[in-house]
């Protein structure tokens, strides 16, 4: 490759970039536009709206066109320089060593035109350092390699520049096939949101099938021969629940395939790179040293399929995103894989062997603390409810309530015992590992250098058993996606020592 040659020739974006800039601007304006359209419907004078529309569209296209025509970037030995802006010109120098993540996005239109949108992100801030909308695919790939290659070289110091883009070919570390994605759909609950949203929108229209429940009831009458009474209701409710379950699972599978189709993880040039998606391809690359935390997600459904998920938390560019409040670019090292594969992938970032890792346990009485008060509240409220139902002579319902409560209570106790047994922490020279939960389990692997502050806390309930909790605050991470890193219910003396050990970084 001869990428090193045109060191400081200013380059332009792809010739159709204006189209994508305009679409992005339209995306930002979509709510005001919708408001205008819906509010405008009541008014009578349509010509004004059309006039405004035409003027707006013309201004928008002109802006997009000028923006992309005046946009320049060029690659220097140690940095990339971006010149942008129409009225307010900025010249931005982004040193390669500062670029932590490179994320990219390619929707259907991008793919049809063979272009890609690229964001260069540093460790801080909510906006990417530079956004290139859009580049031809081949140029984008070369740019990413230049960034990675030169950053490595600058750090190594003294190596000849010609080598910078040599041996760039990344090796495929991990691929997620269709079968795995179906499993992911069965495990994850994403479909719930989709179905919920769909129900909401359908309920706003006349399409909403209000009589679904009635139809199921009719079906029960016709096919099961039960006409009324508690058995009829039980059958109807169970069948409705089962139908909802099937629909949600199907939606989850659909979403898993849509988001993670052909998920690939590459390694090379001291960086990890992922790409995925059925229609919209997206992904990004990062340096393993820039990973703020890794979280292995496990749970009862995961165990059923003997799979886990490996999430990564990257610094920077959290709020600016694809619209769902999550981090941009790279979120997983794998959405789903066998625990052995997860263990290998973890080791690509940090030298931790999860299979042989010995966790320091939490307080032996922790499970009691976890269930005591929830259980007391549950039992008291159920007793009241059962007594009330008995008073109303609804004996069958009272029995069902009591039985359901008992079942729930035993599940809670079972979960708490296993949670307390599985939870714990491990401290290595450079990492803190924290595991918590049972029905939904998270194992967080945190470089100690990323710890921003440590706190110990105790509640009045902890005092009797001499327990305390240790919390760790990280540099980055989406509040919604990554659980708080907290080692709960430790014996107090251990908590104090753990906090003391975490003090230094």
């Amino acid at each position, binding site marked *: 490759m001869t990428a090193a040659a045109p060191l400081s020739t200013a380059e332009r974006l792809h010739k159709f970039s204006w189209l994508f800039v305009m679409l992005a601007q339209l995306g930002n304006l979509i709510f005001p536009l919708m408001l205008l359209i819906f509010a405008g419907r009541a008014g009578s004078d349509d010509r004004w709206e059309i006039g405004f529309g035409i003027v707006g569209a013309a201004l928008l296209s002109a802006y997009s066109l000028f923006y992309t025509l005046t946009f320049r970037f060029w690659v220097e030995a140690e940095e990339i320089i971006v010149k942008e802006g129409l009225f307010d010109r900025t010249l931005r120098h982004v040193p390669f060593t500062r670029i932590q993540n490179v994320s990219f996005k390619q929707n259907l239109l991008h793919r049809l035109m063979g272009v890609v949108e690229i964001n260069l992100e540093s460790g*801080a801030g909510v906006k990417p350092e530079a956004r290139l909308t859009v580049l031809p695919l081949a140029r984008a790939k070369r740019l990413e390699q230049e960034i990675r290659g030169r950053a490595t070289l600058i750090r190594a110091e003294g190596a000849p520049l010609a080598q910078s883009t040599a041996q760039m070919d990344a090796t495929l570390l991990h691929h997620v096939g269709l079968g795995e994605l179906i499993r992911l759909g069965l495990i994850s609950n994403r479909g719930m949101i989709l179905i919920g949203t769909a129900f909401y929108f359908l309920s706003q229209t006349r399409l909403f099938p209000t009589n679904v429940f009635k139809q199921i009831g009719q079906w029960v009458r016709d096919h099961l021969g039960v006409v009324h009474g508690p058995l009829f209701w039980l059958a109807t409710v169970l069948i409705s629940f089962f139908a909802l379950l099937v629909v949600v699972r199907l939606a989850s599978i659909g979403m898993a395939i849509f988001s993670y189709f052909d998920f690939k993880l590459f390694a090379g040039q001291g960086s990890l790179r992922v790409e995925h998606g059925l229609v919209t391809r997206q992904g990004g690359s990062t340096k393993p040293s820039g990973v703020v935390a890794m979280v292995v997600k496990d749970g009862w459904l995961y165990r059923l399929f003997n799979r886990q998920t490996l999430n990564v938390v990257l610094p920077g560019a959290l709020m600016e995103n694809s619209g769902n409040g999550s981090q941009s670019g790279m979120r997983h090292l794998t959405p789903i894989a066998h625990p052995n594969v997860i263990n290998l992938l973890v080791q690509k970032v940090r030298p931790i062997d999860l299979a042989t890792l010995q966790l*320091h346990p939490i307080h032996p009485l922790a499970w009691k603390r976890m269930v005591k008060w929830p259980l007391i509240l549950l039992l008291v409220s159920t007793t009241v409810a059962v007594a009330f139902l008995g008073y109303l002579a609804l004996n069958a319902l009272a029995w069902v309530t009591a039985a359901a409560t008992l079942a729930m209570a035993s599940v809670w106790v079972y979960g708490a015992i296993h949670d307390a047994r599985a939870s714990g922490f491990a*401290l290595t*020279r450079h990492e803190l590992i924290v595991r918590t939960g049972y029905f939904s389990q998270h194992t967080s692997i945190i470089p100690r250098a990323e*710890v*921003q*502050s*440590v*706190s*110990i*806390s*105790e*509640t*009045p309930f902890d*005092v009797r058993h001499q327990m*305390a909790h240790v*919390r760790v*605050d*990280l*540099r*980055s*991470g989406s*509040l919604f996606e990554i659980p*708080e890193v907290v080692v709960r219910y430790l014996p107090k*003396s*251990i908590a*104090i*020592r*753990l*906090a*003391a*050990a975490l*003090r*230094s*970084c």
Partner: protein
Amino acid sequence: VPISQLDPTLVLERIDPRTRYFWAISASLVFLLPIIPLGILIMVEKHSLVWLLPMCALAIWLGARYANRAIESYGYALLDDGLWVESGVHWRKATFVARVRVQHTEVGHGPLDRRMGLAKLVIHTAGIRMQHLSIPGLTEVQAHALRDALLKREGNRQLAQQVRVASDVALTTVT
């Protein structure tokens, strides 16, 4: 009941007792909250406000007591490697921020603070859940001295290394 310290090995500095005036006011307001509907009920039923007086007195007394406890429970220690702050009467919490993790600091005063010559030191980190740690009830001089001492960086790295080795040893002996 004496307040238990989370790390008994540390010697904590206390904050200025004059802070209790502000805290007593806010705590009293909290204790007054449940009294207000009760007072309205009594007023409607008995057409008298006499009952309200002892109740308000009780709320103020509870508030003052709570503020005193809160101040007793507040403490900080400037350590070689960073700052340790403990607080909370019933729900106790101690937070440590390493010197190298301090992003920037602020010394702030409210209008009442200024009248008494008090200040509040706020320490910002790059964290997401606990971005800042604050110590109220410092004198102006104390706040600036503490800030300067915290930002002094000589020999920090070496010190942090020593502390780390010591704490690793401490942990391995426990586990």
